[in-house]
């Protein structure tokens, strides 16, 4: 078929108005949304600018999302990680789980942690990849071990943490290996798992290292 014939055929194609609009066919008024497995909440920790501010004052939920389209809308409207002030945290947690050790869903779990040295531009891309892997449920396909993900903007190096609901070594090792791929880590990049039970111990050693 020649190019002219293809063009002729395209002109003859009539758009069926009854076809539901997706985000790809109509950016503003789309009908079809792609549901996520669960609802997610975006939290933000504001850095303390006053000594009177407590942790509970600083940690606040920003918004929730249940579809891919809502997720992208939020990402487009919030500052990128490199724009955040020092001591800020972004948290994205499943349902109504609070990003705290004390939350029942977190209390028996831990976190996969990785520190990215320096404030490079990689942080935006790596944070987005982490979010996509978590909300798309590809990092934890078998059972929902993941409660949430945290990005901490720090002077010494930005931290990525994947919070899990248990300390079970076998499923966590699989998740850790995938998390390493998401963060584009090579063999040298060290990923460490710390149980929340040891969170108060400053000299705690990781229970799993990849």
């Amino acid at each position: 078929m020649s190019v002219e014939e293809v063009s002729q055929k395209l002109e003859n194609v009539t758009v069926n108005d009854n076809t539901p609009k997706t985000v790809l066919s109509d950016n503003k008024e789309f009908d079809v949304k792609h549901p996520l497995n669960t609802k997610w909440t975006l939290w933000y920790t504001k850095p303390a600018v006053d000594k009177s501010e407590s942790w509970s004052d600083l940690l606040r939920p920003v918004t929730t999302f249940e579809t891919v389209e809502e997720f992208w809308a939020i990402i487009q409207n919030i500052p990128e990680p490199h724009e955040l002030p020092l001591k800020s945290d972004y948290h994205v947690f499943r349902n109504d789980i609070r990003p705290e050790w004390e939350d029942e869903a977190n209390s028996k779990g831990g976190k996969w942690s990785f520190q990215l040295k320096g404030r490079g531009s990689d942080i935006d891309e790596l944070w987005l990849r982490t979010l996509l892997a978590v909300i798309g449920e590809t990092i934890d396909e078998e059972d929902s071990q993941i409660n949430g993900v945290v990005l901490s903007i720090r002077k010494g190096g930005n931290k990525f943490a994947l919070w899990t609901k248990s300390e079970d070594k076998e499923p966590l090792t699989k998740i850790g290996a995938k998390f390493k791929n998401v963060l584009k880590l090579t063999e040298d990049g060290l990923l460490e798992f710390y149980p929340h039970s040891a969170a108060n111990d400053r000299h705690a050693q990781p229970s799993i290292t990849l």
Partner: protein
Amino acid sequence: MPSYTIEELIQLKPSETLSVDFDAVEFKAIIEKVKQVQALKEEEYNATHHGHFNRRRSSHLHHGKPKVKQHKPKVTTDENGWSTFETKTNEEGDSENNSDSNTSNGNSAGFTPTISKETVKVKPNNRHISSSRPADNSDIITDKQVHGFNTFAALVSDDEDDE
């Protein structure tokens, strides 16, 4: 359970910015304000620390010369209206002369002891207390052996005895 790969989710990213159900403008404003406060605090910190971050405490920073209090020379005016400066060195010289004259005359009643007007703080040299070295340098002189054994002198005296 619905799952999407990273690539699939990226494909679903809209080209235009969508609206959200929270006040994104206010959220951004809060973050901007925090950044401003942090920048201001850093500026203040730089100003107070003269641009030196994490500077270690210098061992000689506040340890210059020891402060010695110099007494002002005393001014005395005699009956004729002559004013005389009495400096410390003069006083010491005078007192020495006086004491010498007093002792030579044997007149102990006119003796006036000189009292130093400066406060002298004596600190023991703790560094040497536990060691075998004398704590005070004057001890070196005291402990010094004064009378040595003179072999030649001993020989001479023996000869004399034999004779």
